[in-house]
């Protein structure tokens, strides 16, 4: 069942509020430390700049740049250190209770992640990568359906225009896997349709001749076809998996989330990847936690994720899966 915002609001004020006061005190303390540090760094940077110019070690511009950059770097280091401690506490006192409020049987682990073999098995991202980082793993049963999801960041090293090595995203966002409500043997990959939207018929033709992902599956749902391109290993079973009802639900889910959506159906499991540009469960330091609105977005995100099971009706299993 989908958790309701109104009942969570009651839970927030009745159960979570006392512990949030401790967290709020910590937040204010961190903010005060950061302000103090910023002031100290500003003063030391100014002094350093004067010293370097006065003793003619550097030109004024170089001295300014050196002192400013070293102060900024030092501040970034302190900021990250303080934020990570606060982030861990925030997850303990906000995210975990929120998850348990939604479903007390769910397990949450801040430091755990989906396994790399699960990522490979999904076949959603075939690019090679150099860094695989995941955290905030949630696992358990929702309405009798086995689910696992986490915040995932997969990157690869590339060279930019200046031949400098930089990190490029292969995927960042929510990675979700659940048991599908039908048994099947083939695989189906649903990806955002970039080629057809940009190049029209030519894009569609290109998708048809690209056999790397499998056969192109043309489906009879106009709206779905507009947003997604589907590859599969069996024309009939792909349509058995992607019934008109499921396609409709995917379209509605896509319209609601407004994020690039990737889906695959492999080994009777459904993999879902939703692209985000920032970490999912991190707090915003400048927002007070004693205001409900500041954690409302986190609740809505988690409710959306937990709601995937009922949204896609994964709990309504066909007889052979019971």
């Amino acid at each position, binding site marked *: 069942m989908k958790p309701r915002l109104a009942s969570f609001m009651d839970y927030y004020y009745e159960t979570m509020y006392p512990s949030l006061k401790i967290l709020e005190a910590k937040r204010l303390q961190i903010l005060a430390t950061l302000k103090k540090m910023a002031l100290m760094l500003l003063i030391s940077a100014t002094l350093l700049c004067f010293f370097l110019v006065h003793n003619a070690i550097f030109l004024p511009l170089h001295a300014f740049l050196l002192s400013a950059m070293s102060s900024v770097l030092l501040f970034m280091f302190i900021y990250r250190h303080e934020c990570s401690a606060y982030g861990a506490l925030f997850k303990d006192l906000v995210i975990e209770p929120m998850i348990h409020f939604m479903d007390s049987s769910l397990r949450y682990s801040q430091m755990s992640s989906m396994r790399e073999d699960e990522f490979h098995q999904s076949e959603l991202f075939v690019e090679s990568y150099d860094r695989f980082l995941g955290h905030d793993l949630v696992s358990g049963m929702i309405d009798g359906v086995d689910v696992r999801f986490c915040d995932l960041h997969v990157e690869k090293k590339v060279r930019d225009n200046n031949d400098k090595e930089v990190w490029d995203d292969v995927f960042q966002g929510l990675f979700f896997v659940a048991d599908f*409500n*039908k048994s099947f043997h083939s695989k189906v990959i649903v990806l955002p349709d970039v080629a057809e939207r940009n190049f029209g018929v030519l894009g569609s033709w290109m998708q048809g001749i690209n056999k790397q992902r499998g056969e192109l599956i*043309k*489906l*009879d749902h106009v709206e779905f076809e507009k947003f997604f391109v589907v590859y599969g290993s069996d*024309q*009939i*079973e*792909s*349509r*058995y998996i992607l*019934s*008109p*009802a499921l396609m*409709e639900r995917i379209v509605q889910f896509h319209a609601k989330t407004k994020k690039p959506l990737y889906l695959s159906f492999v080994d009777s499991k459904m993999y879902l990847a939703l692209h985000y540009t920032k970490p999912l469960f991190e707090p915003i330091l400048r927002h007070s936690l004693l205001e409900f609105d500041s954690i409302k977005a986190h609740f809505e995100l988690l409710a959306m994720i937990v709601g995937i099971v009922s949204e896609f*009706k994964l709990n*309504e*299993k*066909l*007889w*052979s899966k019971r």
Partner: protein
Amino acid sequence: METLLIVIGILLLILVFMYNTLISKKNQVTTIFAGLDAVLKKRYDLLPNLVSSVKEYMVHESITLEKITELRTKALTNTLPAGETIALDKQLSSMLGTLMVSVENYPTLKANENFLHLQATLNELEEQISAARRAYNQSVNDYNNAVEMFPTNFMAGFMRLERKEVFSIPARERQNVDVKNLFQK
């Protein structure tokens, strides 16, 4: 002379490409039809069990049951062309639909475990048949487009390829299927 040879070469390549496209689309229809036929056969195999388990309860539906048996025999005894298979499937689906609606009038049958098992299997097969019909229709649509569109229509005429018939998908299959309701029937 060289230009002429290049032009002939290009024309030949285009002809080969068109020929291969048409053959691959024709074969695609045949392959998917075989898949559809296999699922339909699974349903035909289930029917004797279904008929025998409901016969003693549904005394007022004997005509429907006889018709179902007759259609099954017809479907299995002959090697039917695609058009007839489509027509038979349509009739059988409609008969089974009527039968399942009538089940509502027989509470003892609705409580029979063997029947519920058969009904669940049948529902699942219906989902598979629906998927196979959609796949078949898409492949026929691609094939018909190639047969009728310029310039492949000339090649199709030369190869004596003709339009193929599609399944008419029942309106209820186009709607969002509520699996929960299927099992509550």
